[in-house]
């Protein structure tokens, strides 16, 4: 029984990983540019969304938070 590497016989198989790589590079370049150029104020602001200040004050008063 002969055992050959079948996949070599699929023509143009190389294009799939190439497309993937191109999309990967483009997308991440774009995200990186956005992150470098984006406003610090915006990021600071949105990173505080989970911290509800009002709740913290309340909690400090009735000492639920330990």
């Amino acid at each position: 029984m002969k055992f050959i590497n079948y996949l070599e016989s699929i023509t143009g198989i190389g294009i799939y990983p190439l497309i993937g790589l191109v999309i990967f590079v483009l997308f991440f370049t774009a995200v990186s540019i956005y992150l470098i150029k984006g406003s610090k104020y915006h990021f600071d602001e949105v990173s505080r969304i989970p911290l509800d200040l009002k709740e913290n004050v309340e909690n400090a008063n009735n000492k639920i938070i330990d």
Partner: protein
Amino acid sequence: MELQKFQYDNKTVKLFAYATMFWSIVGMLAGLLAAIQLYLPEANFNIPFTTFGRVRPVHTNAIIFAFVGNGIFMGVYYSLQRLLKARMFSDFLSKIHFWGWQLIIVLAAITLVLGYTTGKEYAELEWPIDILITIVWVVFGWNMFGTIIRRRERHLYVAIWFYIGTFITVAMLHIVNSIEIPVTFWKSYSWYAGVQDALVQWWYGHNAVAFFLTTPYLGLMYYFLPKMAQRPVYSYRLSIIHFWALIFLYIWAGPHHLLYTSTPDWAQSLGVVFSVMLIAPSWGGMINGLLTLRGAWDRVRDNVALKFMVVAITAYGMATFEGPLLSLKAVNKISHFTDWTIAHVHVGALGWNGFLTFGVLYWLIPRLFQTKLYSEKMANQHFWIATLGIVLYAVPIYWAGFMQSSMWKDFTEEGQLKYQFMDTVTYLKPFYIARSIGGLLYLTGAIMMIVNLIKTIKIGNFHEVETDSAPALAKEYKAHATDHWHRWIERKPIQMLIVSLIVVAIGGIIEFVPAFLVKSNIPTIQSVKPYTPLELHGRDIYVREGCYTCHTQMVRPFRDEVARYGEYSKAGEFVYDHPFQWGSKRTGPDLARVGGKYPDSWHFNHMYEPSSMAPGSIMPRYPWLIEDQLNATNTIAKIKAMKRLGVPYPDGYENNALKDMEKQANKIAASLKKDGIETLPDREIVALIAYLQRIGKDIKANNSKSQANK
């Protein structure tokens, strides 16, 4: 702007929290039982329902989908409402989601114990339950997106991105991997066979880890950690990179579960490359989590929830460092099929998922019940017992895995295998004992937590009506002049969903499209023939009893494996295997070449009392196979289903199937009789022997023929 008043739905959160606690104990008990069975086969109790092959899927499914699943929903339902300043979209959908999920779990537990399984790891549930999962998952997504659309906070916080990514990817994975042809209400065959089935299954299996055990929990980390530490996440920028890079890379990594198997080499390499790259976003996320506590480490000292979080994030870092390491072919050839992998996943499961869930529960329950934790001291004891439990669990089986693999590969100077397989099994027993003690400690800690939380609930007062207020979102959003395209994604949930789907679909498509083209390109090995009806029944018994949980059917092209088992496995040998049964753990020896190795009577005696044939064996007894009559009523349906899947039985063969079956069964019964064993030919054991004697033999026939021709 006018403030709108609204109430959070705490009831659903509470229900999911209770379910998380309850199923954690069930899942861990099943795990402990399975762990004990590995050195005490009597703990299988000689009945089918409690045998390792069925207990193990119960354990994995209970931990992943019941314990962690409910943990995800608990955290999502709590954080989503608060991050969006909105009540959950629909109380009715929440109710269906909660009870639907619990129904799935109960059905899963019952059917797995009864032996209804697809035989695909972590996707064992049969097709009616698969459909139910799809429905309930859609309900969850609908409820989540409804809430997002009614939100009062423009920006979607990063935790929500992780939830959206989880939702869409799990949907895709579940649907693609579960495509199967029903034979009866509780039996189906995977649409894929052999190599393709393996690639789809491990694309699913790896991403069940990625998108069920990791991404939703990262979402929880990004919400609950800042909340507990009362400071924002270290770097929001890093969290954006973390999200996109993680979901993009994770989806490709599946084939690292198939290194050195009969899968195409390019797919294996793809899996390795992406697995290695995964360390970057994973560690980015871990560092982001740990650095959130910079300047607040003093809070860790006296906040038990934070303690659990810190160990959870550290365990995430360890597991995601080890993952890429295990994906390297040089390491994988040592670790794969051994307990090393089990140790690795338990650092993740016990450390990352377990500890993060415990941390969230300790933080959440007192808040839901407007009180303080009943006993901080007890919670601290839980922390230390559980940490010790993880160490005692992982270290012995890391050692065991490494040693077993080394023993497998050891040759004498004369070039003979140095150890019998049984020698390595005997060597492992003390490590298995130590591991189960570690598991017991961990379980003890979890019980302490539940006692502590129940007492907390008793002294507390459930906060059913929690009111909050926020201004409504302006209908018309005025973009800033300098607004950026990514901001467009950040405020639009549907865009986020679509971009996430594209990002995860790329990897899946690139892995599959060629793999499916392979089918037409595989020169079917001529001597590989479809299973006879009796063998097919035997194979279904093999699947039902979960033999794949301990036995592999994959001889890798290594000197020691070829010497021990025979000719290495070829892709063309598995073309009729719906589903594939390569397994992932070699607790017992490989079975890829077991056909014809022993006489029929050996298998009969071995199934009745394994240690009579293999002294020192830790395999459980299967006496019911000898007593139970084979259910042959669905033979025709099975052959028909196989034909629909493309297995080339001759036209109208289903009508001859029963006759052929009887002939083959009589032959085996006669061969058993010759060795002094009286059995009826219609017993399950006969079918199983037929299958076992067939495995891996087709290619041997080919070899002997070509030798004869010479």
